[in-house]
């Protein structure tokens, strides 16, 4: 039964993710005084991509062909690792672990980078390089925040952490936890690939340059994988820092997805504020802030507050 719920969790995320993406796009257009596409536009895009033929760079090897599926498998497994529809009594508890999630994200990054190399496209290579660098920045901050949570709750097991938080034995009354939540939200925002760190929609020279050569159903499946990755990153934040939910798996899932959607759409407001950062300067300085916040949280844990 828990197996079916897990499948439901994955499928429903795949089904609703384009909707939130559409809402975010519409909202962004309104923000920029445009009319903007319909909120179902992302669905239309995906359907159209499914019906189109694929392209392949003449240099591409098997990595290029399997990369979309590997990316999808990784992000889907990441989303499955979030204990929304199952608790600590399920067989998937031993899979739902913070380190599994982090290393699945690393696997995603690995495949993303080599897929960029494989196309021999100049922008894809630059995109790979940026993805790797952003990963390095983000991972350093994320791991510090996660240490605070893991050590505070005493385990790296997600259902266990969620249950401890729900019971109220650990939570926002601990200063280190509260401070870590800010830095972690910041990192998760970076991971969702938005301005000022990235612009997921258009710009070829940014991270998405890796996908420059993909088309047809390959691109469709990568798009779904990207949305799933952003969902699992936001969901990761929610599980650790906002785990209160219903007992009933279906209601919990509905609440969880709508929470992710709200965060996803709210990110548009930050997205539209300023210019993009260049990799060398703005990125580094702006990542020093969350790093500083995370370090403060860590210090507080170490001295035992």
């Amino acid at each position, binding site marked *: 039964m828990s197996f079916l719920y897990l499948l439901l969790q994955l499928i429903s995320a795949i089904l609703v993710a384009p909707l939130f993406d559409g809402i975010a796009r519409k909202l962004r257009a309104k923000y920029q005084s445009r009319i903007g596409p319909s909120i179902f536009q992302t669905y239309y895009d995906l359907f159209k991509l499914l019906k189109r033929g*694929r392209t392949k760079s003449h240099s591409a090897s098997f990595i290029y062909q399997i990369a979309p599926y590997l990316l999808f498998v990784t992000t*889907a497994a990441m989303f499955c690792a979030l204990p929304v529809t199952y608790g600590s009594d399920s067989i998937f508890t*031993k899979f739902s*672990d913070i380190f599994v999630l982090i290393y699945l994200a*690393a*696997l995603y990054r690995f495949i993303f980078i080599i897929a960029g190399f494989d196309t021999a496209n100049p922008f894809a290579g630059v995109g790979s390089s940026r993805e*790797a*660098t952003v990963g390095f920045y983000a991972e350093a901050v994320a791991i510090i925040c996660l240490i605070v949570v893991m050590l505070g709750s005493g385990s790296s097991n997600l259902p266990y952490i969620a249950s401890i938080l729900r019971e109220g034995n650990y939570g926002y009354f601990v200063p280190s936890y509260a401070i870590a939540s800010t830095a972690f939200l910041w990192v998760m925002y970076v991971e969702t690939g938005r301005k000022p760190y990235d612009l997921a929609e258009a710009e070829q020279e940014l991270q998405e340059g890796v996908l420059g050569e993909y088309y047809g159903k390959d691109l469709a499946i990568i798009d779904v994988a990207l949305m799933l990755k952003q969902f699992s990153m936001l969901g990761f934040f929610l599980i650790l820092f906002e785990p209160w939910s219903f007992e009933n798996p279906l209601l919990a899932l509905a609440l969880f997805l709508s929470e992710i959607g709200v965060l996803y759409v709210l990110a548009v407001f930050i997205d539209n504020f300023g210019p993009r950062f260049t990799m060398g300067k703005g990125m580094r300085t702006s990542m020093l802030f969350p790093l500083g916040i995370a370090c403060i949280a860590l210090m507080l844990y*170490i001295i035992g507050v």
Partner: protein
Amino acid sequence: MQIIYTLFLLTSLLSLLLYKKPLLAQKVGFGLASLLSLYAAIFFFSNLHETLTWKLPGNFISAPLFRLDSLGMLFSFLISLIAFAVSLYSFDYVKFYEKKANLAVFASLFNAFILTMLLVIASDNVFSFMLLWELMTLISALLILINDGKGASKNVMIYLGIAQIGAFCLMVALLIMASFAGSFEFSGFDELGISFGMSLTLFVLLLIGFGSKAGMFPFHVWLPLAYCQSPSNASALMSGVMIKVALFAFIKFALFLPHTVEFGYILLFFGALSCVFGVLYAVVSNDYKASIAYSSCENVGIIFLGLGGAFYGLGAGLPSIALLGFIAALFHIVNHAVFKSLLFMLSGNIYTATLTRDMDALGGLHTKMPITSIIFFVAALSICALPPLNGFASEWITYKTMLLGGLEEGVMSRFFFVLAIIALGVGGALAVMAFSKVYGAIFLGLPRDDKSIQNAKEVSTLMLLPLCLLASFCVGLGVFMGDVIDVLSKIVLSFIPATHFNQDEFVSIPTVVIVMLLCSMVPFVLFYLFKSNNTPSRITEPWACGFIYNKNMQIGSNSFTGDIRRALSFIFRYESEMKMDGYFSKVVYTKKIHDFFWDKLYEPIIRLVMIIADKIGIFQNGRTNFYAGYILVYLCLVIIFAYYYL
């Protein structure tokens, strides 16, 4: 059991005797070595939980005792297993060195190297240990010199220099321990009645001694020099198992000392530094063999983190942490031996096919060497500790140990364990960057220099066979993580206080595999439901903004790391130069990365030694009358000394 060691010795001598017939010697030497090490691996594995002792027969000056307990059995098994794969691989690989060196000598040294490593593990006496230890270093130095070339002697001298610093510290530590124990047999070392300060000093000496051999930071400078210089099968053995011998000896001797938590802190600190700095150099290196070599430093760091947790647990009287820490360290030792020797052998495949080590000249090798490419992919995934392969399993247990340690009360322990987790996490992110770059730049895309791959072809089946074997170990050790932990915990419990752990709390890699397989079906179901377009892909030129595509437009390994090099420019001092002769001529970029620690730590010491040597040199002026004067002065001094003190 003695028969294994004897046969290795005989094979070594036999291949040396066939000096005049190198091709025959190569067949005999490496063929017998692979058979022998296979037998040895089976033997050691079947006796894993037993203790065997033996003495040298005959009338030697001393009759040293050799002893293998279950930890020694594990390491002997590991050495034999990796030696089996490497010698099978060498059988064809060494033909590449036919013109450079005498294959008979190569085969002889190869066998002698395996033999000395096995004997170091087994030796149970200070003198035999030191003798065999130095012999192991010497033979490995000779193996490096097989690939003679520009700068070879300098690289070997740096390797030997650092090994000698280590051996000196080791000798001092072992003699002090022996004098306290009143015996030169290691079995008498159990009850050392020494003070805290002495035990800390001994620990630091042991750490320098074995850490320098293992490639721990800041002794990592010899790793890229020695491993890049030596033939790939030798670097596979050195990186795969020789540094494990150092780690084994470190565990063995450090356990004799009275345990304090400070041991754990020291190990955690240096482990964390090795973890981050090792992999940072792996990221920025442009030579794939140097990248792989630097990542040894990272992995040794991870092993030291596990050991740090273990020694902290022993010192603080928490055997459950000690058990997990030792399991983490031993598991990572096994894993590292498997994937690191695999990677070095694969680098041998690449080098024999392309004759270059510069990643900016390679690319697109997948089309020529598909199987090598796929095996490299698996090895790269497992060295980056990505699920569901073996690296992930051992790093997960290391994380678990660090978490348990970080939960302890006390600022010091929390600080060091937290530092360890950060280092492990950042190291993991950088390892992904390093190895995705290595794999992508070598195998994918288009060749950046057409000359490099035009003669490339897939290596022979005999060379691929051991590679496939080790690649399957990469998968197997990950998926059957639970069974491996059971075996290792039985070994660890033989030398630490009794305790237990609950494997239910561990992550289950089979579940990860099942979930991933399940997820992999979803896209195909969606394709079927929405009736996707399944026509074959249209082959196109890569898009280049409307310009005519040129393969030089693709990213190279140098530009790939540009952002991170700029971001970390306070550590990497690198000089890049652009040379342009004329408007239409090709622009040449050169880049030179300075090893910060070489410049700041080793360079001043070397300069100091040179100055002192120069000053001493004044006395050696070659004039006979001066030497007669020295003798006279010395005689006078001896007489004065004798008059007053005797």
